[in-house]
């Protein structure tokens, strides 16, 4: 605890960096995955290719990806953008399949009813498909949120500051308390974001709260 008290500003600074890296990566992943999932749902044949590529990308280890991305995009190795792109690639790869499943989970009769009521294509997507896909989508978003927050720490190895710095610095200077602070801080951040997502999910699907828990699948 005394280490944490003495280094509170440093830890808070790294925490802020951590949030700045993980949240944009998660948001980009969600948006791109929804687009890809929608494409995969609409055109299954294209979807097989898209989802196959995604799972292939997912099998590229994180640290090598952090070194290859700057070369491909011509950005500096130690730029936070490198990490955000790498994490967004992972997040998207992991979430695209779930997004396709989410759209498939929407009851076809509900869509037909909405169509009969005169919803436009855009209206059907924004007001029917997307809201009804939220529960399945949310389960996937929660998974990538936790893994993204944890993966941000890897950036410390190539010099992108985050709570991961506490891990590398603590290792090099043999300060166990610093590593433990980094691990616990990372996990706490993941938990906080997860809770936030659950709350957002509740707000986005008010009709599900009314049903007893047994009905929530």
């Amino acid at each position, binding site marked *: 605890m005394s280490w944490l008290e003495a280094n509170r500003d440093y830890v808070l600074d790294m925490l802020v960096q951590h949030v700045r890296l993980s949240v944009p990566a998660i948001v980009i992943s969600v948006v791109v995955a929804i687009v890809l999932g929608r494409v995969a749902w609409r055109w299954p044949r294209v979807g097989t290719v898209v989802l196959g590529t995604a799972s292939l990308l997912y099998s590229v*280890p994180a*640290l090598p990806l952090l070194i*290859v991305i700057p070369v491909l995009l011509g950005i500096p190795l130690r730029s936070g953008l490198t990490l955000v792109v790498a994490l967004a690639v992972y997040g998207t790869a992991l979430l695209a399949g779930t997004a396709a499943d989410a759209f498939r989970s929407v009851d076809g009769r509900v869509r037909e009813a909405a169509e009969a009521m005169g919803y436009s294509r855009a209206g059907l997507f924004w007001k029917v498909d997307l809201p009804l896909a939220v529960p399945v989508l949310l389960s996937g978003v929660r998974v990538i949120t*936790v893994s993204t927050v944890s993966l941000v720490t890897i950036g410390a190895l190539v010099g992108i500051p985050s709570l991961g710095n506490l891990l590398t610095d603590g*290792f090099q200077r043999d300060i166990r308390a610093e*590593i433990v602070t980094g691990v616990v801080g990372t996990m706490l951040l*993941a938990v906080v974001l997860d809770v936030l997502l659950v709350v957002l999910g509740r707000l986005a699907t008010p009709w599900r709260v009314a049903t007893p828990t047994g009905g929530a699948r």
Partner: protein
Amino acid sequence: MNLFADALSWITDGSHWGGPGGIDHRIVQHLLVTFAAVAVAAVLALPLGILIGHTGRGRLVVVALAGAVRAVPTLGLLTLLGLALGIGLQAPLLALVALAFPSLLAGAYAGVESADRGAVDAARAVGMSEWQLVTRVEVPLGAEVILGGIRAATLQVVATATLAAYISDTGLGRYLFSGLKSRQYDEMLAGALLVAVLALVLDLTLAALQRASRPTTGKVLS
């Protein structure tokens, strides 16, 4: 793109092959560490997962465990164990075993549980013992899912074995870290490409194995 050419010529440079620290040596080392970690974790996790799947008890523990482990930053686990056990192979191996465990456990449990209930009931009805049920019905029918768990675990471990080079002189990750330290981009990128290719080859091999394990349905034994 020039950097990629540099990295490729670094890889094909004969002086980087052979001897301790050579590319071939490091690939073998990387694979050995990966297989050792997955094997140790499998010996522990698969029987436990099969037991959970067979009895249907302890499911919540598996789900909670898998979630919790995903939240732990691997680098934190590695560095903590590195400090505790000193420089050497024990710390990364232990961290990798811990990393592989939940995927294997979840795969084994989900695989056994995915076995067609009708087939299990039929097997029980014709008088199979519980042991026979597990070994002749549930595990063969769940093989694809169980192998899926092994595949996921192997992929995680082969990727994370790269990080192991941060705390010990092991595997292909060494090229990444020594290249980073000395700002030798060709070496760094070469290391990155080697790990990526190794992971892809391993994943595709296991995917093929997984497909081959699909139980052949509709075929009558003669």
